[in-house]
């Protein structure tokens, strides 16, 4: 298999385990490229990519842009803060205006779940979902699984606990789909109010005690509290959250095994994760960031080959 089964990457839900393996193998090659003195390849020299971000983003946007430039694509950036969206323009109008300038691929972040699916029915360009509300963030899940594979050799058979604000997280859902497709066991852990009521129907274990989750897992992926997506109060205070759901060094010391700590960033230090864990030898957080560029290069490169 040398081609993805879809011309878009809308979500992990929609792609096959073979697609994921192909992305990983391609990312392995690009990771080698990134470690060379000349980090650029001409693969997407004739391709123009628009990064359309309707929500704030630092690392994802930077990571995509770097991946695109390493592939020699032409890149244009657009964010809602300097767009006509605030003047009441519709999503379709905004994107069509950009596409009129002969753009081949769209990388989009949007606050509405399903916004890239809606777009995919109405425009011709390839679409990469860079996060749609509380739905999916497929490239984050791919780079997370890629990082686990790199650290532990394989994803299959590993136990991964996703801890934190699952309800408002697009990373959680994409991670669940991706890890399960690769044969890992998944647990979610957090306050009951921050877990979707029917999350167990996705075939994950559910835990509310962080220490127990850490004891169970090989890998703990700690998610940040998405205060910007919480329209009402879901828990009493950040203080209480950090006391009962935050991960600190003492908790890791109580384990009689080594586990891997991950975080998609940005970290709320002292809330969901203490610095003595984030910066410890357990953490592969910066590897995730590094792998993000290689995985996104792989996704863009492969999608450009699907017409």
């Amino acid at each position: 298999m040398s081609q993805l089964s879809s011309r878009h990457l809308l979500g992990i839900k929609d792609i096959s385990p073979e697609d994921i393996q192909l992305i990983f193998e391609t990312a392995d090659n690009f990771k080698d490229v990134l470690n060379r003195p000349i980090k650029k390849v001409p693969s997407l020299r004739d391709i123009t990519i628009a990064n359309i971000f309707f929500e704030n983003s630092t690392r994802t946007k930077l990571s995509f842009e770097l991946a695109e430039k390493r592939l020699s694509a032409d890149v244009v950036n657009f964010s809602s803060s300097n767009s006509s969206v605030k003047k009441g323009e519709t999503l379709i109008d905004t994107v069509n205006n950009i596409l009129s300038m002969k753009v081949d691929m769209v990388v989009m972040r949007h606050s509405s779940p399903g916004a890239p699916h809606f777009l995919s029915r109405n425009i011709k360009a390839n679409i990469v979902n860079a996060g749609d509300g509380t739905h999916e963030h497929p490239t984050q899940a791919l780079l997370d699984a890629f990082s686990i594979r790199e650290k532990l050799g394989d994803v299959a058979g590993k136990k991964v606990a996703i801890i934190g604000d699952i309800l408002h997280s697009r990373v959680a859902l994409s991670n669940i789909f991706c890890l399960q497709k690769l044969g890992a066991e998944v647990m979610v852990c957090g306050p009951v109010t921050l877990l979707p009521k029917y999350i167990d129907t996705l075939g994950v274990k559910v835990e509310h005690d962080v220490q127990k989750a850490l004891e169970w897992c090989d890998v703990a992926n700690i998610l940040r509290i998405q205060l910007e997506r919480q329209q009402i109060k879901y828990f009493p205070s950040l203080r209480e959250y950090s006391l009962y759901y935050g991960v600190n060094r003492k908790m890791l010391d109580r384990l009689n095994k080594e586990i891997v700590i991950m975080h998609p960033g940005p970290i709320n230090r002292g809330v969901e994760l203490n610095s003595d864990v984030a910066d410890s030898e357990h953490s592969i957080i910066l590897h995730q960031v590094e792998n993000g560029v290689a995985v996104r290069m792989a996704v863009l490169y492969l999608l450009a080959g699907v017409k």
Partner: protein
Amino acid sequence: MSVLLRSLRVIDSGKIHSARNFIIKEGKVHFVNDVKEGKYDEVIDCSSFLGSKGWTDLRCSSGEPGEEYKETLDSLGELLAASGFAKAVVLPNTIPAFQNKNDIQFFKAKTQNWITEPLIQAAVTKDAHGEDFTDMLDLHSQGVTVFGDGLKPLSNPDRLMKALQYLKKFQGVLFDHSFEPLLALFGQMHEGTVSTRMGMKGIPNIAEDVAIQKNIEVLTYTGGRMHFQTISSKGAVDKIRKAKSLGLNVTADVSLYQLIFSEEDLTSFDSNYKVMPPFRSQEDKDALMEGLKDGTIDAIVSNHQPQDFDAKYMEFDLAQFGMLGLQTFLPGLNRLSEELGWPLLISKITDGPDSVLGTSVEDLQNLTVFDPQEEWLYDRNSNLSLSANHPWMGQKLKGKVKLVFNKGKLAKF
């Protein structure tokens, strides 16, 4: 003017009768034994059709006044007749709401030429905001007997209690689409496995169940008449069934499309499937079917809710709720006819809604005749609504209304 309907099989009293001949003459329908050829102005061969008393829809929306680009009262009237309805209750959620004497007079004036008998559900609170009451007695003096806030629930228990008490003076019926808004905050679709997979905030069954239980308790205290509109959850069916068994004066209806679609239809984020109440699980759908069979649910409604293109052509969570329901009504019934049978389905749009309204129509005073087999293309050309928010748009549908006779007028389609 006399029209012979030759060999029409009429559905009533729980069965489909063998083919008989009817004539429409001097504003009435008559059963005839002897057919004398050449005696009639027109002869219509009805041998492949079915007929029944004229149909009643207890819930449909107009955009007029205020949002005429979605649906006018003229287009709604045309739609209702072409969809087989001899009587229809129009919701009050216009801008402004149908809520005072002048509004009712406007409504009557605009609908006087309808084939369908127009009824209004007058707003029970001003602008359907759930706070100050409208002048209910004054509205009743204009012939209004059905009150409610239409698309919005009367969720304040004090308002509900006093409305039920106040309506008792003239046996008015309070219609309510019951759900507790605080338990459905930011909800976009049914809360369940599918909403979880889609990362979408859900509208849980409990939002409906709690409201219906609360309203039943209030009704037990006040007495009076309450009609639950567009119930959608298994819990709602169970609670209404129990209330009926205890002798409480409650009735209920369900949207036809609630019986056809389910949460699984939403996986592609198509906003045409975004409705309120939301399409729920298969278990809920099964309970609704059971509720129809055992009489817990009295009526099936179109819940026709037109939304213009720009209100739907956008991100799912920003799109408006609602789906068209009139022209697709018979094709929808067709899909259910195998499981529920025509006699039951027809009773839910004739005798059932009549009992909700406290009216009864003598046999053959009005008539709806339809061809359950005729196929037709539902597209921009055949669509009679000013809106097009239905997922079946562009598809070939089966089942076509052929004629409606009502108010002494005959409309053929």
